[in-house]
């Protein structure tokens, strides 16, 4: 009989191996799925693991998708480490896009280039304000942050919908639910001529460095960690769990808002009801697969972006629904959680006869 034995100390090997095991399991299930649907599995794997990385153009598209995922997942990793279950990053992302869009709409072709900075800061503020609602209700009224942050995603979607169908609708937009196309100075600078990749990726990588320093070098980071891992120890040390709650939620709200602002003024260039595409939820998976570690998050964000692009390719070239991306994303988190068991436990084969003898001796 297979038995789980608790390891004396958690295995650091499996902390790193577990995402790879999960990826292998997801690929295996994916291959089975392709065969089951009568599609060529080799072509399927190509769509997900070769096409998205085969050219500079392809890498630029990966970078565009990885930017919001990295930013949001960094904030979520802080939340999850502090044991704050913010699963409403999607809503904070939408508010960031709304705040940024509100400023960008007012820009004219003559606006100074520095308006980009104002726009991005507005996005951060928007995301922080939305996350602050969750923090306040948790802190002041003990309301469960999982449910509050998630309900606020639906509310944020409706706020966006109201604006683009109502007061912010482009009067010359043939009645489509969309704002005006933002003036040129609002556009986030691009990194290379001819590629869509923009400076957002550089900002995201700076955020990775910043979060690494914060988590592993600064006192407040330590406070958040201890508050999450051992609330009693944190109280004994005089750390405030309220402080950790606010720090985690405001940071992750701000980062998600920044991601929304970058998306609105980068690839999108206007607000529509289709601003939210699920990055806020996918980033939860990115954070876990990246082991809640800033550098790990970069790799898992690249992987998740490959899933997105692979899904789009599978739709156009293999006549598969694009939602296959969501299936693989969900499977990856499932298999990861299962594989994580190996971090804390060792699997031992024990014959029942052996167990009985051992029992008799004792």
């Amino acid at each position: 009989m297979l038995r789980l034995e608790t390891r004396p100390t958690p295995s650091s090997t499996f902390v790193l191996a577990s995402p790879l095991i999960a990826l292998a399991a997801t690929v295996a299930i994916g291959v089975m799925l392709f065969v089951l649907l009568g599609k060529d599995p080799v072509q399927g794997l190509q769509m997900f693991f070769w096409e998205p990385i085969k050219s500079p153009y392809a890498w630029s598209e990966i970078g565009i998708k990885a930017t919001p995922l990295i930013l949001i997942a960094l904030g979520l990793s802080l939340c999850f480490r502090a044991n704050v279950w913010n699963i409403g990053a999607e809503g904070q992302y939408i508010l960031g896009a709304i705040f940024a869009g509100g400023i960008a709409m007012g820009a004219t072709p003559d606006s100074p280039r520095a308006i980009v900075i104002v726009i991005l800061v507005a996005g951060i503020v928007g995301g922080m304000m939305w996350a602050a609602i969750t923090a306040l209700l948790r802190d002041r009224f003990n309301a469960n942050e999982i449910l509050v942050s998630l309900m606020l995603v639906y509310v944020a979607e409706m706020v966006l919908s109201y604006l683009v169908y109502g007061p912010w609708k482009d009067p010359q937009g043939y009645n489509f639910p969309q704002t005006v196309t933002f003036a040129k100075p609002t556009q986030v600078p691009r990194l290379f001529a001819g590629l869509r990749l923009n400076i957002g990726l550089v900002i995201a990588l700076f955020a990775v460095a910043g979060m690494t320093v914060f988590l592993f070098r600064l006192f407040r980071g330590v406070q958040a960690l201890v508050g999450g891992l051992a609330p009693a120890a944190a109280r004994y040390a005089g750390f405030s769990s309220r402080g950790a709650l606010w720090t985690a939620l405001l940071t992750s709200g701000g980062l998600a808002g920044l991601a929304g602002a970058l998306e609105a003024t980068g690839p999108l260039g206007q607000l529509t009801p289709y601003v939210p595409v699920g990055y806020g939820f996918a980033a939860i998976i990115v954070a876990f697969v990246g082991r809640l570690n800033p550098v790990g998050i970069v790799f898992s964000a690249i992987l998740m972006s490959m899933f997105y692009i692979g899904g789009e390719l599978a739709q156009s070239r293999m006549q598969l629904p694009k939602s296959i991306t969501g299936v693989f994303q969900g499977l990856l988190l499932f298999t990861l959680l299962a594989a994580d068991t190996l971090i804390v436990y060792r699997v031992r084969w024990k014959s029942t006869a052996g167990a009985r003898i051992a029992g008799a001796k004792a």
Partner: protein
Amino acid sequence: MNEIALLLAATLNAGTVLAIAALGLLINERAGVVNLGAEGMMLVAAVVGYAASVHSGSDVLAFVAGAAAGALLAAVFGLLVIWLNTNQYATGLALSLFGVGFSAFIGQPYTRERLSERTQFEVPGLADIPFIGPALFKQHPMVWIAIALTFFLMWWLNRSRSGLILRAVGESPESAHALGYPVRLIRLAAVVAGGALCGVAGAYLSTVYTPLWVEGMVAGRGWIALALTTFATWRPIRVLLGAYLFGGVTMLQFHLQGQGVQIPSQFLVMLPYVSTIVVLVLISSNAAWIRANMPASLGKPFSPGG
């Protein structure tokens, strides 16, 4: 007058979806397991139930298929959290995220399908009573089943041996284990039962309530059902009343729109979500009361002998 009767009828109908899902979640939470995968289970069950109805034309088969889909997903969740001791929040979240993607994936062909003519139910004679008739006696039998289920659970959790064992597992798994009860199997059974009921709720939504399959159609009802168990402090009767209250809020938005009230529709659609937050704040601010009523081992893993 008649309009109010119709509003009442619609409220009971909308509340039934929430009530069945929340009563299911109440069972597994009473055994100590939180399943945040409700939304995902309901979505997959909604499309599976819809497909079953399209192919067979039978509502009963749709409910059975939905229940089976919910139970199967819940079983996978249960194996992970009960035997592998994975984090209940993260695993439930994984189930919800998977359910969103998987339901959209398998549901794609069914967005174009329509169901056969829906049966109108009415209790002969009683349905003609003014006011009460249209409100109460022209309902799908599931509305009555939800009420019956509520009273059954009230009896079962308080008066039956097996119900008390379930609660013992949720309050103190160590004591239940020491008394020789198979804690893990009982928890798995509770999780599977919860998933099956979420599945029935999902199938009811797509085959009777709407009746349509649209991507993401559960629209947060799984999460609201999770909130309902807390609002109700884990009591079946309060779950039912809370579900009707939220059903009423949902219906109020259509009613106000019908009345030509000059509020942008988006603010009306927000109502159930905002109400959930408001009620959550009102109930949770009394932390001691929540703690006193919450199953003591809720969310905590249990391993026998270790």
